[in-house]
């Protein structure tokens, strides 16, 4: 049986891991390579790195950090933020990343998903999307609009339509990061995760809002997610990966044991 994945997310700002609430008030949490090594040895199943300022500042991602991570952890990891085109994708993958996550770039130039999938394989291309809840059901039938640039810009795209389109173009996985839940630690936006998961045939990763192991269990059961991104709850030291995994196993979730 395929196991549910626990994916720590490391938001990078100026080569430090930071964590904010809804992308505001960022607090420094540590060195990305050291934190990656710690989470790896504690049994995380995958890692994701977002250079959260790269996209907003329109500069390329820190490739040396990617190289160092690749020498340190021997599990899949994805890199996103500031990916500007095929060259950046290629550079990140050749540096040792398993997957590249596109968000703003894909909104600006959707064809990049198909190009990336053709060149590197669908399994390498992750669509990161940051949907925000909206009331206008006429313009946004799913009730969610896609935002970009660290939630700074609205796109006019309906979240569900965008997810389906990305799948058709060959994207291999979708990370659904709820703007409303991000950093709140009050639980994932389960309805959103489930709506996307029920309507695409590729893995869906729940992101934003995890505060306790129960939230993660809900993302897998009610939310139908294949994987769950966690951040603040482990960066602060309040929970460990192993502790979370023990709780999930006790709750009957199929999880990889590394101890």
């Amino acid at each position, binding site marked *: 049986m395929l*196991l549910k994945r626990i994916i720590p997310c490391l938001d990078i700002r100026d080569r430090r891991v930071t964590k904010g609430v809804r992308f505001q008030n960022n607090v420094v949490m540590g060195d990305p390579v050291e934190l990656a090594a710690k989470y790896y040895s504690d049994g995380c199943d995958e890692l994701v790195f977002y250079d959260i300022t790269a996209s907003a500042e329109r500069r390329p991602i820190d490739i040396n950090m990617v190289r160092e991570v690749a020498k340190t952890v021997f599990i*899949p990891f994805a890199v996103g933020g500031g990916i500007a085109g095929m060259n950046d994708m290629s550079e990140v993958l050749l540096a040792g990343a398993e997957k590249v996550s596109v968000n703003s770039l894909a909104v600006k130039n959707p064809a990049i998903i198909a190009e990336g999938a053709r060149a590197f394989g669908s399994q390498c291309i992750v669509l990161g999307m940051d949907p925000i809840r909206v009331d206008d059901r006429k313009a946004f039938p799913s009730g969610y609009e896609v935002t970009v640039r660290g939630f700074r810009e609205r796109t006019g795209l309906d979240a569900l339509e965008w997810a389906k389109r990305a799948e058709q173009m060959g994207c291999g996985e979708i990370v659904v990061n709820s703007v409303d839940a991000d950093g709140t630690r009050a639980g994932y936006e389960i309805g959103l995760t489930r709506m996307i998961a029920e309507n695409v045939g590729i893995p869906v990763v729940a992101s934003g809002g995890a505060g306790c192991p129960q939230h993660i269990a809900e993302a897998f059961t009610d939310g139908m997610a294949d994987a769950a991104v966690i951040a603040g709850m482990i960066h602060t030291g309040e929970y460990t990966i192993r502790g979370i995994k023990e709780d999930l196993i006790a709750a009957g979730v199929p999880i990889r044991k590394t101890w």
Partner: protein
Amino acid sequence: MIAIVDYGAGNLTSVRLALEHLRMQACITSDPNAIRSAERVVFPGVGAIGSAMKNLSKLGLCETIRDVAAAGTPFLGICLGTQIILDRSEEDGSVAGLGIIPGAVRRFRPVFPADKVPQMGWNAIVPQKKHPVFDGIPDSTAFYFVHSYYPMPMCSDDVLAVTDYAGTTFGSVIGRDNVVATQFHPERSGEAGLKLLLNFCRWDGGNKPGVAR
């Protein structure tokens, strides 16, 4: 020296980094002579089998790979590399492989939509035989898989470990004699994967037939 065979089928960085982490000397190469003279050969690959086979022929590597496998060199196939050493794959219409191990490659046909194709993520392997590459790795350890097609060797003797996915039990580790091949990615499978790679690097490839469990 370990030769990591480069035939344009995907990114080999992670395989090289994992071997270097184990303090092994490894080089990424498509030079037939370098591959023939290597102490051991790692044959990775991701992507579609059709273009991979074309690249292998273009590089003149089909005979090289068959020869080193026949010569007793410890040989490790990974992912697409594992599928290529079988006779034939359903992918891309129907493509002939290298026929090093008799058998076919089939596509997952899930009954339940929740079983997505490709299988992407961690799944357990259950060894069917004793083999030096499994030393120190407990039964039902999970490894990292990314694939839509799976190996089905003709002889059950060539199935070293099995995994269940989408209603199918398939050979997740196959091999005979000096050849061993994993459908999963040991280089992405954490400490268990590194252990399997280290076991491979220490294996003499000698003809120790697997013992039925």
